């Protein structure tokens, strides 16, 4: 101190409290609130002294932080923790539809009182008066990025978005009109579940709507659900989970039974992220988590992609120039495994535009070793499914070094069936040393999962092309390669087993892998001769990491050409061709 102490220093916000975010944020709020009360008297008498106006601050329900209300914008997303506030049906409609395009249906449908529940009719009437909706769902038809779609948006402000007769009826009618007009349907769910005040009639809505979803699906039409906070109970257990594509907002509560009920039943504390959108995605039930500011764009992409039918373009010419190299097999093995080799994701990024990744097997887990989704190859919508290796340790932990679990193969199959429903060609990219050999994989039926893929791929009514990008190891590779045509990168391999495994089984010495490679005939050159593959993607010397564009531009043109040719075939020709392709293998 160089100046005489003339005053008391005030420490309103002891910095050490920052380490404990909870107590710290409490102290902020207290200080602000104290001030608000403290200064009120003078404020209101003088009118122009500094004060905090009402509504200037809002509290984030997720991070408990104090947010400047102007920073919430129309998306109502916390600028600090990105937590999504609950918003009304009409707010959602304004955010996702093209301006003035929403045309509401059945706006005057109101519920009667099926079980004469005391006070119910009055409650419904009072809410209808107070809110800008008169039931827990708003339905209608609109444009999203120019695509005509049916849209239903639930509103959690109305008896927690619970599903009574009117909710069930409006949504069922929306499905029926969608079928009648051959339209896709998008539903934003927000619901506590069935409506207790309507008893068993409410329960029946689950079945009624699900049956309508089934008819819509059988008509080959697209259904997208967007799960928002909260989506629980009977809504989760019916139409929320039945979308062809299930999206969710970040952090949304998604579940069937309530957390408290479960904790009390099993007498255990559940993890913090239990029943969050992220938890549901990890467990394989959500295709994609989409933040509110990206929602309209993502919906627009998906809807547009489903409008366009792939058509065979006639008269495409293509100059093949991939000559297989005659490099030493062991060297090809080495290059195919190089850490710097572009991964399947890199290949997708180069050849597919507007790629939207979909997660999960809708059963057990989302497997990071399988990447799948939709996008465009040139002008043509396709489904892409790939085994993904990482390019560093962290990525490899996430992708399990490119070794899929059974749920990975089941995710792949789910996306293939989805592609078939919408008539989309399928591209698979393969780079795996093999299916994951582990107890957990066996418990969940690794063999069964691979078998199901082979069985179902044989019957897919859409063109399927496979490309081996790096390693094509055994059944784990074949599970994505029962295709109309199979291509290989020049420095990739495709074999019954890894050379190490081969040496280990035949000679009980995995050290003799080099020798194994030389006899296994695993190079594109050998496989082309044996007609196991149809062609080779050229690579510059040493591998396509040295010049990715050279190989990938070629690959893209090749695929465009091959799909165009396959699309000219009838379904039966396609199926027969695929059958014959594999029927021919055998030496006797």
């Amino acid at each position, binding site marked *: 101190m160089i100046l005489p102490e003339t005053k008391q220093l*005030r420490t*309103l916000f002891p910095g*050490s409290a*920052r380490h404990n975010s909870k107590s710290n944020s409490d102290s902020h709020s207290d200080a602000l609130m104290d001030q608000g009360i403290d*200064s009120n008297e003078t404020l209101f008498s003088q009118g122009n002294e*500094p*004060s905090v106006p009402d509504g200037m601050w809002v509290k984030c329900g997720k991070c408990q932080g104090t947010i*400047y209300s102007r920073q919430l914008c129309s998306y109502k997303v916390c600028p600090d923790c990105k937590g999504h506030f609950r918003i009304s049906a009409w707010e959602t409609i304004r955010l996702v539809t093209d301006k003035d395009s929403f045309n509401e249906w059945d706006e005057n449908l109101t519920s009667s009182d099926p079980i004469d529940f005391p006070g119910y009719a009055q409650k419904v009437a009072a809410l209808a008066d107070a809110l800008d909706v008169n039931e827990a769902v708003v339905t209608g038809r609109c444009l999203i990025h120019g695509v005509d779609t049916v849209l239903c948006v639930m509103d959690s402000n109305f008896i927690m978005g619970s599903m009574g007769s009117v909710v069930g009826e409006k949504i069922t009618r929306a499905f029926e009109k969608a079928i009648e007009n051959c339209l896709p349907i998008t539903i934003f769910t927000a619901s506590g579940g069935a409506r207790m005040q309507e008893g068993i009639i409410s329960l029946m809505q689950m079945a009624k709507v699900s049956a309508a979803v089934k008819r819509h699906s059988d008509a080959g039409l697209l259904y997208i659900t967007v799960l928002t906070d909260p989506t629980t109970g009977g809504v989760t257990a019916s139409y929320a989970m039945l979308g062809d594509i299930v999206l969710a907002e970040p952090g949304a509560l998604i579940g069937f039974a309530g957390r408290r009920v479960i904790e009390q039943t099993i007498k255990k504390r559940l993890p913090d992220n239990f029943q969050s959108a992220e938890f549901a995605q990890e467990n394989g039930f959500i295709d994609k988590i989409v933040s509110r500011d990206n929602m309209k764009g993502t919906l627009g992409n998906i809807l547009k992609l489903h409008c366009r039918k792939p058509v065979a373009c006639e008269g495409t010419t293509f100059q093949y120039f991939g000559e297989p190299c005659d490099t030493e097999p062991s060297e090809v093995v080495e290059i195919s495994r190089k850490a710097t080799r572009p991964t399947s994701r890199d290949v997708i990024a180069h050849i597919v535009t507007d790629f939207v990744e979909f997660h999960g097997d809708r059963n057990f887990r989302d497997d990071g070793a399988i990447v799948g989704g939709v996008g465009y190859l040139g002008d043509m919508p396709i489904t892409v499914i790939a085994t993904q290796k990482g390019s560093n340790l962290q990525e490899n932990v996430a992708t399990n070094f490119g070794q899929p679990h059974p749920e990975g193969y089941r995710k792949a199959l789910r996306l293939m069936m989805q592609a078939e429903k919408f008539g989309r060609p399928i591209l698979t990219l393969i780079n795996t040393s093999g299916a994951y050999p582990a107890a957990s994989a066996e418990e969940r039926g690794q063999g069964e999962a691979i078998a199901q893929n082979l069985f179902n791929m044989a019957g897919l009514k859409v063109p399927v092309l496979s490309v081996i990008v790096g390693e094509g190891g055994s059944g784990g590779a074949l599970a994505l390669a029962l295709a109309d045509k199979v291509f290989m990168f020049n420095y990739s391999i495709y074999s019954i087993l890894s050379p190490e495994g081969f040496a280990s089984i035949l000679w009980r010495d995995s050290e003799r892998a080099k020798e194994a490679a030389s006899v296994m005939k695993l190079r594109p050159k050998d496989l082309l001769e044996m007609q196991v593959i149809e062609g080779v993607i050229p690579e510059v010397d040493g591998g396509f990491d040295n010049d990715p564009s050279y190989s990938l531009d070629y690959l893209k043109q090749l695929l465009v050409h091959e799909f165009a040719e396959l699309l000219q075939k009838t379904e039966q020709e396609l199926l027969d061709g695929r059958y014959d392709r594999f029927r021919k293998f055998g030496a006797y």
Partner: protein
Amino acid sequence: MFNKILIANRGEIAVRIIRACKELGIATVAIFSEADRDALHVQMADEAVCVGASPSKDSYLNMHNILSAVLLTKADAVHPGFGFLSENDTFVAMCEDCNIKFIGPSADAISAMGNKANARTLMKSAGVPTIPGSDGTVDCVEEAVEFANSYGYPVLLKASAGGGGKGIRLCENENELRESYAAAKTEARLAFSNDAIYMEKVIRNARHIEVQIIADEHGNIIHLGERECSMQLRNQKVLEEAPSIGMNPELRAQLGEIAILAARACDYKNAGTVEFLMDEDKRFYFMEMNTRIQVEHPITEMITGFDIVKEQISIARGNRLSIRQEDVQLNGHSIECRINATTAGLIDYLFLPAGGLGIRVDSGIYAGYTVPTFYDSMLAKVISHGESREEAIAKMNRALGELVISGIKTNIDFQLQILESENFLQGEYYTTTLAQMIESQEIKP
């Protein structure tokens, strides 16, 4: 006048503002972080409030806490200084909402000038000259050649999705441009998966010249002449002088008018600085506007005899500008050297070269003060003023020769080398000169 002002800053600028308030008879509130408990501004202010932990984001950038401090101390205005929240339009909007006077421009003006691309568009439409560039992408080589022909070589090809210096190519002539164009596109595609390219003219041997403007809330705007800030390293100004050696009264009046035009275009209030590049033919190009008081404002004060901070406070209270454009007379020459710490730690001895006509030291340090590691490294600004540039240089040499800051390392020797360099003495220096002098080992940092 205001009764009490909270200074939402630290270091020498906080001290500078507190001094102005004291002279105006306005009570002051300092804010401080945990690391700044013993800082000079905390001791000088009438009240001081701790607003959080040492990292800036928890204290000097903590809008919520700072607003609370304003309300608790019943201050009626906030002076933001420079840096920290001074150009944060959200904070300004919060102050506006709470009926707290922010001593500076409106949130709208800050946000209009804050986004570089927006500011450029706004300035172009207001008729302020900007650095020629292709507005949007250049999609074929002929378009690129056409652009270069109309603005002259050299030009830069830049990847739209680029950053960090990647995907930038310098082309000196048409041959180079034709050769580089395809390569730049490929490079951009591989590096950023996006081959969009845009172009910009390169201003060779550019001087960084900025104009101080000040506007009241009644539509009056004046300029206080220019500052020459070309002596810089990695976009950090090191030494500034006013007036600029390359200027004359006609050019100054012309540039001043352009600066006022820029300020009017965003409905600017209070003090601000419009930064320009000046090319060898003395043509000016708008770079950006700093919507706040600047570090180097004292040299303008020295040659105009006009206290900018006091005027900021007066204007914020709603008063009209106290002088008119014709009252602004430039008198002599002034130089500022920024004295930075190159290490943190305890200053165990300090001698400031105060004394004598025409030397001013603005600082936030004292003997026994420990320089914290969390903030900007600037310790003090030594400002000299003389009848001529030569006299100002001589005074600066004398002052820096006397200045002692012991216990930590500083850039005093570096500044003395600049003062002695031929480029500086001749006034022949551009924004790239200091880096070149270091590269050629003429000066050792």
